[in-house]
């Protein structure tokens, strides 16, 4: 570990407890001006907690933070902002009822006397968004934006303060490769301006590409701080997990011949046009596409969550009448939404209540048999290795990866035969990802059919036997077996003309 | 052994009930000042059902006499029956129970208020003209007054009652309602609003509209401000009909006397009903009805 006496930000003996549970244990790091500092760790390792301490959301239980040689106590986000620290948080921190520019300047508005100077703010917003290569109207309301657009606004919001230290907690999870390329380009430019960046990501290749040094946390303990050249991706994973990581992607299994799901000419009211495809028993079918391609809409149409304007769905050869999620449940369909917090889990409830929510009838015989619920909950906790400071706590206090495991358990408890997974590994660590991959594969081998919607090409290619690519509400390509090809997918997803040569290079470099 | 007297009245939701509470407290203070052997419990209820609870609580305290002005008579019927049946000396004020259960009932004359008012008004109008009416809250005494009023008016076919809507004995509602009446009816000769609180709102509306067609405005119940207006020769307000909230003070005196086994009011017999006349107050007799320190 290199010692820099002129450290910009020096973190000494930081501990953090949540109601008696230690989530950070004696963290000591020095962060230099103008470096990109990566923080790695499994879900729940304490990465977000550490960053939240630095930006004043949490106060440490003990320890000191020194900024430019002077000890500081960062007691609120306001104070952090004044000290030149800003953060792109892991969860969206935008006000849906306000416009883009109002969000970007929230809490630090440009004023003209007592009144707001909206013109100046709009102009600044436009230039920031242009820098991010995002064409958004400064006056668009946040509610109407897609996930990726929101993330870009979030980034712009952090940039507007022109801070010395910029904290990014998994900024890339909801972005596709194109936007990621833009973001990394931006990081490089910020670095030139001597801005320090703290960067969390579960995508090890990203970390390898852009970070100068990395800190690895495991269960709240500081494992190591290394210059990036000293470690490769395998080392990182090993340090995070604490042991050798075996094969990430399981061997692909062969689907049976029996067709279980067929969608014919499905269109919705807005985006989807004449979608037709079929799914066999024990098949793992991948859906690729850029953000906004309509994969989520398609899944929601099939589940009866969204009105269809035309089209038929056949389950096991029979025409299925699916107008509500309840109907879909009857056909043993399951759908893991990409929006875990907004649509998946009741964050104020505990694990058993969440896991049994859909399958409640199974446990009910006039009254709910709570013991039985607890038993099957314990089963899932073991099976998926669900970890938290307290397993009895509400899900709000769980890390993202563990929440995802609870979500998966929730749908598994309905005993589905067709499982639609929408970005199931978004924001979860390598080890948990590996567990989920192996789990999906074991399901498929047992004859469950899966549809995997993912923006990570690597995982689609590593897992699926067949991949469909969507663009602007249509299926534009289908690839099977050895014909699955990364370049091909990107072309079909973006439409060849939309993608200029440079971004394509950048993209393939990252992937 | 001290005697305990419970007094239960509706809470002060408009001027008259405020006057009532004022008189009740005055009587209690007066009696307590001279008579050390009486304890009073005064409770005020915002609704009939709350008052039922109040009376139940008073019974638990072991009162010897109950003086009650029922918020709504039928609502209080059962519980007052229980009080009466348990031997507590019961005085009901103002609003009579559907099936009487009391030692003494003391009240003003509600139908009389409507009747006396109607007769005076009809005479002032010379038996013809256009009239608007502002009613009180939807409880039986309002109906008694309005029915009696309409009964008299039937004898005057040339008097047209153009509108009759409730303003809940509230000054402000009366003001808004009267503003609307004034818009709606180009010619109004007289207004009857059965209550002096509402009359203030009516006067305000007329004044602001600058209308000169209205010759007579009659309220009721005899509040001190209105009686002052009569004394001061107001051109529109020349009369009111009494319905005096001091009746509760008399009721309290009855209650104390009854609990001691004395005859009520020092009379030589004990009346079961004391009905206070609805007196017409005009300039000549206004002085006799004027209590400047009263709340009403």
């Amino acid at each position, binding site marked *: 570990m290199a010692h820099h006496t002129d450290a910009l930000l020096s973190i000494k003996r930081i501990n953090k407890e949540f*109601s008696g*549970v230690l989530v950070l244990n004696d963290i000591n790091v020095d962060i230099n001006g103008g470096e990109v500092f990566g923080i790695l760790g499994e879900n*729940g390792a304490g990465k977000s907690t550490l960053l939240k301490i630095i930006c004043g959301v949490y106060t440490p239980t003990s320890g000191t933070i020194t900024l430019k040689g002077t000890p500081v106590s960062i007691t609120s986000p306001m104070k952090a902002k004044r000290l030149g620290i800003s953060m792109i948080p892991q969860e969206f921190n935008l006000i849906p009822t306000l416009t883009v520019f109002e969000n970007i300047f929230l809490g630090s508005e440009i004023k003209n006397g007592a009144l707001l100077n909206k013109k100046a703010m709009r102009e600044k917003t436009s230039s920031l968004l242009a820098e991010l290569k995002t064409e958004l109207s400064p006056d668009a309301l946040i509610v109407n934006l897609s996930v990726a657009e929101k993330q870009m606004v979030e980034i712009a919001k952090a940039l507007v303060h022109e801070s010395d230290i910029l904290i990014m907690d998994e900024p890339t999870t909801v972005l596709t490769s194109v936007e990621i390329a833009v973001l990394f380009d931006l990081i490089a430019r910020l670095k030139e301006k001597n801005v320090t960046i703290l960067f969390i990501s579960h995508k090890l290749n990203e970390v390898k590409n852009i970070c100068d040094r990395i800190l690895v946390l495991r269960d*709240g303990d500081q494992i190591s701080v290394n210059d990036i050249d000293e470690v490769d991706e395998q080392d990182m994973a090993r340090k995070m997990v604490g042991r050798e990581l075996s094969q990430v992607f399981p061997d692909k299994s062969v689907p049976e011949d029996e067709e279980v799901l067929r969608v014919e000419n499905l269109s919705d009211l807005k985006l989807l046009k004449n979608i037709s495809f079929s799914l066999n028993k024990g098949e793992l079918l991948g859906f690729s596409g850029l953000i906004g391609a309509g994969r989520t809409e398609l899944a929601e149409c099939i589940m009866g969550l969204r009105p269809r304007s035309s089209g038929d769905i056949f389950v096991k050869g029979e025409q299925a009448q699916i107008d*509500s*999620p*309840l109907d*879909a449940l009857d056909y043993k369909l399951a759908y893991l*939404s990409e929006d875990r917090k*907004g*649509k*998946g889990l*009741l*964050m*104020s*409830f505990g694990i058993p209540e969440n896991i049994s*929510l*859909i399958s*409640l*009838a199974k446990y009910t015989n*006039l*009254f*709910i048999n*709570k013991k039985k619920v607890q038993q099957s909950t314990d089963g899932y906790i073991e099976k998926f290795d669900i*970890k*938290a*400071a*307290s*397993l*009895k*706590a509400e899900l709000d206090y769980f890390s993202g990866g563990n929440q995802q495991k609870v979500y998966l358990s*929730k749908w598994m408890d309905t005993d589905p035969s067709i499982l639609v997974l929408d970005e199931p590994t978004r924001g979860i660590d390598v080890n948990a990802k590996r567990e989920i991959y192996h789990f999906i594969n074991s399901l498929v081998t047992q004859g469950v059919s899966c549809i995997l919607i993912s923006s990570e090409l690597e995982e689609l290619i590593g897992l699926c036997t067949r991949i469909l690519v969507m663009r602007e509400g249509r299926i534009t390509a289908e690839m099977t077996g050895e014909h699955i090809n990364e370049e091909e997918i990107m072309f079909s997803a973006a439409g060849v003309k939309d993608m200029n040569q440079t971004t394509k290079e950048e993209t393939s470099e990252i992937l | 052994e001290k005697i305990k007297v419970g007094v239960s009245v509706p809470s*002060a939701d408009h001027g008259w009930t405020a006057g009532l*509470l004022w008189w009740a407290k005055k009587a209690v203070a007066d009696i307590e000042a001279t008579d050390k052997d009486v304890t009073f*419990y*005064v*409770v*005020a209820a915002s*609704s*009939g*059902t*709350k008052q*039922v*609870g*109040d009376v*139940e*609580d008073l019974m*638990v305290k072991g009162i010897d006499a109950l003086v009650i002005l029922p918020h*709504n008579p*039928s*609502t*209080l*019927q*059962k519980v007052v029956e229980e009080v009466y049946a348990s031997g507590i000396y019961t005085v009901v004020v103002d609003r009579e129970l*559907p099936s009487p259960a009391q030692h003494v009932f003391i009240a003003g004359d509600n139908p009389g208020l409507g009747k006396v008012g109607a007769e005076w008004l009809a005479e002032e109008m010379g038996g013809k003209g256009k009239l608007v009416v502002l009613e009180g809250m*939807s*409880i*039986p005494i*309002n*109906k008694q007054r309005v029915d009696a009023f309409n009964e008299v008016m039937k004898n005057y076919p040339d008097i047209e009652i153009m509108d009759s809507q409730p303003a809940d004995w509230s000054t402000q509602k009366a003001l808004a309602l009267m503003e609307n009446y004034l818009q709606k009816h180009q010619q109004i000769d007289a207004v009857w609003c059965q209550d002096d609180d509402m009359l203030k709102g009516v006067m305000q509306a007329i004044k602001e509209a600058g209308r000169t067609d209205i010759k007579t405005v009659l309220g009721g119940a005899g509040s001190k401000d209105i009686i002052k207006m009569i004394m001061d020769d107001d051109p529109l307000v020349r009369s009111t009909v009494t319905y005096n909230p001091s009746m509760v003070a008399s009721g309290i005196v009855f209650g104390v006397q009854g609990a001691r086994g004395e005859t009520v009011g020092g009379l030589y017999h004990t009346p079961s009903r004391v009905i206070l006349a609805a007196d017409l107050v005009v300039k000549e007799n206004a002085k006799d009805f004027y209590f400047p320190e009263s709340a009403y």
Partner: protein
Amino acid sequence: MKSYSFEDIKRIDYSKYAPLFALVILIILSALASEHFLKFRNITNILRQVSYTGTIALGMTFVIVAAGIDLSVGSMVALVGVLAIYLMNYLGTSVFAVVAAVFVAILVGSLCGAVNGLIVTRGKITSFIATLATMSIFRSLTLYVSEAGEVISHNDIYPEIGGGYFLNIPYPVLIFLGLAVFFHFLLNNTAFGRHVCAVGANRQVAIYSAIKVRWVTFMTFVISGFTVGVTAILLSSRLNSVSPGDAGIFYELDAIAAVVIGGTPLAGGKGTIWGTVIGAIILGIINNMLNMLGVSPYLQGTVKGLIILIAVLAQYKSN
């Protein structure tokens, strides 16, 4: 990382049992303040007074847990009461008339609740506004059908329901507590109860979890209407009459206060029936003590307001 269940229990206990602590403290203070307080007769009086709004508060708990609110309950009491007594008077003085009236009251109450439920689920109008409107509508219809006159029952058996006793305990108290037990199980131990919590905690998640969100929301209003039907019977039989302009007035506020003092957050998502029962009793004791101590009638509102604040504050501070 291990699980710290001891911590959990400590955390949950405090906030959960705060209403109970508040009640116990209130009882001790009341007993010290007034010799009459612990008299059996006084206790049953309080409980009977509590049973009217208390029963409604039970139904209100479901509505609030599902993140709604029902402001129309007070007016609904009047409407249901008036219709029930009209029917009974029409049917004569038999026991059958009473039974029919009880049945119809509960039916009409549930129907009124269903109307609220439909406006909220089909019309997609916030429950606050929807029931604000029906509050006005129900009261107005009551005044219209009764022409604002008091409606008096001519049946001699009817008053027995609200005024009678079983083992010295008034029937309304027994009915209130019996319903509380029933609703407790409905909320805590059935799929429906769990769904109510889910809908209140996050509608969107509930939709994605294949819960019939509209149906569940609708049913909470029906339950609220049902409890109003029961209260209308208890109250009108106790009084043997209904006064259309006055019956049930401000019941919505008392019922909501009971639910919230009982620890159910207005934002919904969770709540307990026994908390509501305790909340209702706390309010009842406060009312009783104000009378017992002879607090100036003008100041009673101040004391009541302060005690509500303190009760709620105590809940928050204890966790």
